[in-house]
């Protein structure tokens, strides 16, 4: 039976060679002009002010953990789906019980907010009622917009 995998192995080798040879060609053809700025993390021209965060929201981990539950369910469903003809009613009852257990725990997880991602859907006053058009709109010429706190002509605040 393993002979059936021969073409897959040949294709694997070919795909790998394609990628590797492309890299060799690129190394030969591409220029190399290293510069500090090029090797810095790309943040649209802003100099990165802090380290890359190493932690991210726990919800992503939760998704991965709940995925495993369903992955295992799929692992059990596939062989039964292929062989269900020979197992008859017994197989069906077993799979129904199993799916019920998985679904019930899934409902429990959702009920406890394991997959709650949504924003707060609630009307909030985005702007304080104390603000009026006269208090927020600046007249041009009186102040230069965006230059508060800076002395005009002082470049130190601009170039980081």
């Amino acid at each position, binding site marked *: 039976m393993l002979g059936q995998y021969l073409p*897959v192995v040949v294709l694997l080798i070919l795909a790998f060679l394609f990628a590797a040879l*492309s890299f060799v060609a690129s190394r030969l*053809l591409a220029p190399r002009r290293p510069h500090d700025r090029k090797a810095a993390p790309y*943040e649209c021209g802003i100099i990165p002010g802090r380290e*890359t965060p190493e932690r991210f929201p726990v919800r992503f981990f939760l998704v991965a953990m709940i995925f495993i539950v369903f992955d295992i369910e799929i692992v059990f469903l*596939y062989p039964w789906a292929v062989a269900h003809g020979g197992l008859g009613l017994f197989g069906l009852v077993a799979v129904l019980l199993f799916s019920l257990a998985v679904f019930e725990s899934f409902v*429990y997880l959702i009920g406890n907010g394991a997959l709650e991602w949504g924003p707060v859907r609630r*009307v909030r*006053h985005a702007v304080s009622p104390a603000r009026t058009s006269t208090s927020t709109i600046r007249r041009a010429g009186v102040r230069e917009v965006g230059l508060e706190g800076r002395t005009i002509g002082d470049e130190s605040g601009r170039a980081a």
Partner: protein
Amino acid sequence: MSAVTTLAGMGDRAVLAADPLLRGDIDLGIVGIVVLKVVVAFALLLVSVMLMIWFERKLVADMHNRIGPAVAGPFGILQTLADGIKLFFKEDLIPDRSDRAVFKLAPYLSLVPAFLVFAIVPIGGDFSGDGTVTWFGERTYLQVADPPVGVLFFLALSSIAVYGVMLAGWSSGSKYPLLGSVRASAQMISYEAALGLAIATVFLTSGSLSTHDIVATQVEGNWNVLATGVVPFLVFLVAGTAELNRPPFDLVEAEQELVGGFHTEYSSLRFALFFLAEFMNVITMSAIAVTLFLGGPSGPILTDTLGWVWPILWFSVKVFAFLFGFVWLRATLPRFRYDQLMDLGWKVLIPLSLGWFLLIAAMRVADAEGWPVAPVVVVGLAGMTLGAVLLSGAVAKARAERLADLDATEGVDA
């Protein structure tokens, strides 16, 4: 009633899939044929990716009322080739803060699975017969390989592709790629569960994991349109689009938030390989959808001479319809919000495809046991409704608790 019996009535087939070419001893001639098939499939993939990128740009341009690529070659058809060649001559940058070994490994992890998935897709062969063609005196299938694990191979490779995306973003040592890759991996594994459950119904009707057998059983049973052609097919389409990170599910590379997503730090050829893998995945996902749900290369053979061309033609037409659909979606739909994406995957698609799978399974077992099918359907639908009610109750409870928590911590709004 007759529809119901055709739905559940397909006989059980215990076919052990295998390409007749590789069943016996393997001599040098057979290895030659294998290499020929692999090289043809490889070249076909690369050329079709090239054309697909051009097609997408041109079609989106048309839908935007622009001209699109028009300079390189007639209708700009060589634009992709020109872009590819250009990328060979671009400087290859590796950021200082990156994990160099992983950074270099990630493009391989994306590209190699993209190539391999295509191996299990039957692209031709007359399925009114046994689906074989005769080359150089050897009978073989018109697909690169037909391993008995078939579709599992596709699922395994699409899981490996998640590593490519995840490691690319993580190893870049930069904010936006990391955010993009975390989003991407959560999205891809979420929709992989929905994808897997949708495919499970196909296995019920085919009784085999091999793609060749799946196509053969579809030809016998009108593509199993009622059992797999509506609910599992639609779930597969949505989950497949999300799995490919295509619009409207392209949060992975949402330009406005994440620069370029997980491949922000990649340049030159490394970027080109990610790009290649992405579009290759679009083509193979369309081909897999055609194989699992739309009868693969089957279709009427209209002429006697050159009869082997027709299945390939039907296959290409079906795949092309999907490719057009993917581009159309991109031009039409705005991007989902991340919580909408997660809700759709977990709270709609997964329960729906699980319920449908159990319903079809119960109908098939009832049919085999000789029970009347109609009561089973009624009970099954009642069970699905009960499940939906429970689930929406749980969702409502979680939402109410979250809002109550917010009120407690932040105070109710004025």
